[in-house]
């Protein structure tokens, strides 16, 4: 009955099948095969990535829970913890952008509140094909409204994120959602089924045929034949999720349950077997008790459905009624569908017959890990020697073009659709280097940022990954926050291609190195492979979500110039390098060269210097230099200043003008201070081995830069602002 074709359809190899037979001591029936197929999929089983992810540092002073649970948990003091994680929903978002993105938000929210934390902020990292193509625009419109539709209704603020455009995402957009929750330290819950005789309760939406094999779909390349998988699309119901949140937090708060797990990928299968395996127990489930939306569902369908907004709870028998009362208050049913048993087996019955009887350990823990063949990533196409590269005649015009390029342009068109203030904690709205959220009842605040420059990782995955960590930490430093933990979403192509695996291995190595240098643990993340469509892989795209702590929220600093007459200080060294820059890409049409050099130790020193200056109250504004270099950073500081104050910069460092203005040398931060504080700051910098120079003054209505006495740039702030502000909306102009 089980042949090669059937295994293929289940994404299992013949070797894996033999292993299954050996582990369970019998030929699996179709339902059991279905269970293994999802649980051993790349998405759930991390088959190709596990051996490499081991390199990441996972320990640290704040860590309460590292990888392995629904989300990481860090101690932030004051009896509180943060629970956070990032998740991808790339394939579903391409098939149906609105629902794909919406259910992506729904999924990560459940990961957070299943641990007892109230989600307090979301960030989204988005990658699309260029917006001049209407198909890309329609994917983007759908994704953004899906995130907005779900997050806003649920009542979690979306406080920031990033959006990049590149043709490699034409047929494979990336939608990564990062969520952070807050909980009391003694109220964290785990996905464990403990105590024989305890009852298993099902809560939330009814089970339908939606999303069957979603996890397997996320574990295969996309092609024409994926079309037939389309009926799998799930529709999100944020209203139901909000009720689930309140009811779950209430039963947890009142100590009514033993364990809890959300039903995400692989639905009931994953939640039941994982909870049993983690508790070292077995589980019996009666599928007839599972609330069903459609008639005539088979056990296979019920078990593999990925219907949204469902959770599984375990409670002692005497608490069952109290749990059900709480759920009834929130208009939700909570039927008992099974029981925890001794013995480590999952026994599932349907219409009086046992349809599944397998050891949970085999399903959950014994999925094979592959050390797939690796090919060294191709070296980047060399950048032309600077001398061979024509320098634009009008650098002001160049700046305007860069500011209007979609990846650099203002993203308000996106984040204005997100409720970023609900829960009244958002101190820094989208637009700052990092989002800042106050912690009610305390002076402390949380900061969070999402970063990843896939152009760098494409040219050099290891350096690119190191830069991603450095840049995220730098964004935190600019607001005055110290990083405490990391989550990451690794978006790559088909891992069966050695060159993709090579990129992956290099990127993970770079991440590990950088996280070690910064002393920040990785407490979880997500790997999304098979981002290939019709044979083409996306650029390797690691996305870093880093959480930071601010000791006194009143000291947090924004990017915008505060007042005219402040001194402008450039921290960090500017090198003669243009590889991997937006300038090369946008102005010269070149994705070439090596990404900027990164010296992690120097980076750390620079950040520490800025942090201490902020903590000492000496910094009026701070902004990191990233895409577009110094010129774009100066422009952004002006745009974010209350009265769009310009600046007059004067420096001399022997670089070519374009490299000076648009080079993306790392470890640099622009800050401003009162003139009286300048010399003290520069002295401290010198004493710390931190390159820092006063480069000018804020004021005026223009962005002006003189280089060795020559004026190389003078653009009215207002003109630059319009180029930056009007670019994205221009693509989406509603026809009147």
């Amino acid at each position: 009955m089980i042949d090669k074709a059937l295994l293929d359809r289940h994404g299992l190899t013949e070797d894996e099948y033999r292993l299954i037979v050996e582990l369970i001591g019998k030929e699996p029936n179709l339902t059991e095969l279905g269970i293994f197929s999802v649980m051993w999929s790349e998405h759930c089983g991390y088959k190709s990535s596990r051996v490499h992810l081991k390199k990441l540092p996972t320990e640290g002073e704040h860590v309460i829970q590292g990888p392995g649970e629904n989300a990481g948990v860090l101690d932030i003091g004051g009896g509180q913890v943060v629970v956070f994680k990032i998740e991808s929903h790339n394939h579903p978002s391409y098939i149906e952008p609105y629902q794909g993105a919406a259910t992506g938000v729904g999924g990560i929210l459940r990961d957070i509140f299943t641990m007892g934390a109230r989600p307090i902020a979301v960030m989204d990292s988005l990658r699309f094909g260029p917006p001049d193509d209407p198909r890309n625009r329609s994917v983007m419109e759908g994704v953004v409204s899906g995130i907005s539709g779900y997050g806003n209704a649920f009542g979690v603020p979306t406080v920031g994120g990033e959006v990049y455009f590149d043709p490699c995402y034409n047929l494979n957009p990336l939608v990564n959602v990062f969520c952070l929750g807050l909980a009391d330290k003694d109220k964290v819950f785990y996905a464990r089924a403990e105590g024989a005789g305890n009852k298993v309760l099902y809560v939330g939406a009814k089970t339908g045929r939606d999303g069957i094999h979603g996890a397997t779909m996320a574990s295969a390349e996309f092609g024409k034949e994926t079309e037939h998988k389309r009926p799998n699309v799930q529709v999100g119901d944020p209203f139901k999720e909000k009720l689930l949140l309140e009811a779950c937090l209430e039963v947890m708060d009142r100590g009514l349950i033993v364990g809890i797990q959300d039903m995400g990928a692989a639905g009931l299968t994953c939640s039941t077997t994982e909870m049993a395996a983690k508790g070292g127990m077995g589980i019996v489930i009666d599928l007839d008790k599972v609330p069903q939306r459609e008639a005539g569902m088979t056990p296979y369908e019920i078990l593999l459905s990925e219907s949204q907004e469902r959770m599984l709870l375990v409670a002692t028998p005497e608490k069952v009624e109290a749990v059900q009362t709480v759920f009834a208050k929130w208009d939700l049913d909570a039927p008992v569908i099974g029981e925890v048993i001794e013995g480590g087996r999952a026994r599932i019955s349907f219409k009086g017959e046992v349809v599944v009887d397998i050891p949970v350990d085999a399903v959950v823990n014994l999925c094979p890990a592959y050390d797939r063949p690796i090919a060294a990533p191709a070296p980047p196409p060399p950048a032309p020697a600077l001398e061979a590269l024509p320098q634009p005649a009008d650098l002001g015009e160049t700046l305007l073009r860069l500011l209007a390029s979609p990846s650099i342009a203002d993203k308000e068109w996106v984040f204005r659709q997100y409720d970023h203030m609900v829960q009244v904690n958002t101190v820094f709205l989208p637009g700052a280097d990092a989002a800042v959220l106050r912690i009610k009842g305390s002076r402390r605040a949380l900061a969070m940022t999402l970063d990843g420059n896939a152009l760098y990782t494409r040219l050099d995955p290891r350096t690119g990954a190191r830069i991603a960590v450095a840049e995220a930490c730098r964004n935190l430093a600019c607001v005055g926050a110290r990083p405490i933990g990391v989550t990451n979403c690794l978006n790559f192509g088909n891992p069966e291609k050695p060159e993709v695996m090579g990129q992956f291995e290099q990127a993970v190595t770079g991440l590990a190195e950088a996280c070690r240098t910064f002393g920040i643990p990785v407490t979880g993340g997500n790997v999304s492979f098979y981002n290939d469509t019709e044979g083409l892989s996306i650029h390797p795209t690691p996305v870093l979500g880093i959480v930071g702590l601010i000791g006194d929220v009143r000291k947090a600093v924004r990017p915008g110039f505060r007042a005219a007459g402040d001194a402008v200080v450039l921290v960090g060294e500017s090198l003669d390098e243009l590889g991997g820059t937006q300038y090369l890409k946008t102005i010269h049409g070149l994705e070439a060269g090596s990404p900027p050099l990164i010296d992690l130790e120097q980076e750390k020193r620079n950040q520490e210097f800025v942090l201490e200056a902020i903590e000492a109250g000496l910094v009026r504004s701070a902004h990191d230099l990233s895409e577009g270099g110094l010129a774009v950073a100066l422009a952004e500081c002006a745009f974010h200043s209350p009265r769009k104050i310009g600046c007059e910069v004067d420096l001399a460092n022997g670089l070519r003008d374009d490299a000076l203005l648009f080079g993306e040398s790392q470890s640099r931060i622009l800050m401003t201070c009162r003139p009286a504080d300048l010399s003290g700051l520069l002295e401290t910098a010198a004493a710390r081995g931190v390159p820092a120079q006063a480069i000018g003054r804020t004021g005026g209505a223009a962005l002006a830069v003189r280089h060795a006495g020559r004026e190389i740039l003078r653009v009215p702030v207002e003109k630059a602002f319009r180029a930056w502000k009007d670019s994205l909306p221009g693509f989406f102009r509603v026809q009147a």
Partner: protein
Amino acid sequence: MKFGVVQFPGSNCDFDTFHVLRDVMKRPTVMLWHKDHDLQGVDCVVLPGGFSYGDYLRSGAIARFSPLMQEVKAFARRGGRLLGICNGFQILLELGLLPGAMLRNKNLKFLCQHVHIRVENARTDFTRAARKGQILRVPIAHFDGNYFAPPRVLRDLETNGQVVFRYCDADGNVTPEANVNGSLDSIAGIRNAAGNVLGLMPHPERASEALLGSEDGRTIFESLILSLEKRTPAGRPAAGKKARHDR
């Protein structure tokens, strides 16, 4: 005096409003559950923002049938102060306690941003701490905030001074650009004819702490507290006399 914040399934600014009333304005505040019939003796009922019942069907359309809303209606009829913020405003419209209806924002997108509103009538229980013409900077966050009413109703609103807030620019000019959601006559908030019920789309509770960027929203809560603390609390009919309200 005591505030009550109504919690519907899907409300999500309930805790925010509660936080501001209790911790910032420092007034006794209770949560009121939509399935109850008891207003717990509060002097002012606040219908908070959010997505009651997911905003399914129409924003505010289902919440109005909650058991508690029958009590709230009676409370308002007796002259009790009732404030509806965003979704709360939409519920008041659906309930018929305020005239008109909400349409989708004119650009058909959810809008979250700071806007300016101008106080059109400072002689109300909700604005007496403000000056007429004062400009408040407060955030909006809604999909359906495009106020609509038939011409006759609009005329009545104007003549009776029931238009309390209008969208304007930073200098107080009422312009089409400042009217981001497309509301008729740039209406951002209205009160009923009796003066005890106010609905507005912007979120004053998000603009009540300096740390969050603006304290302009406090004016509304301060006004309410002023009017409530100065008079016999409405809602508890005092000596058979109906409470009076500023017009």
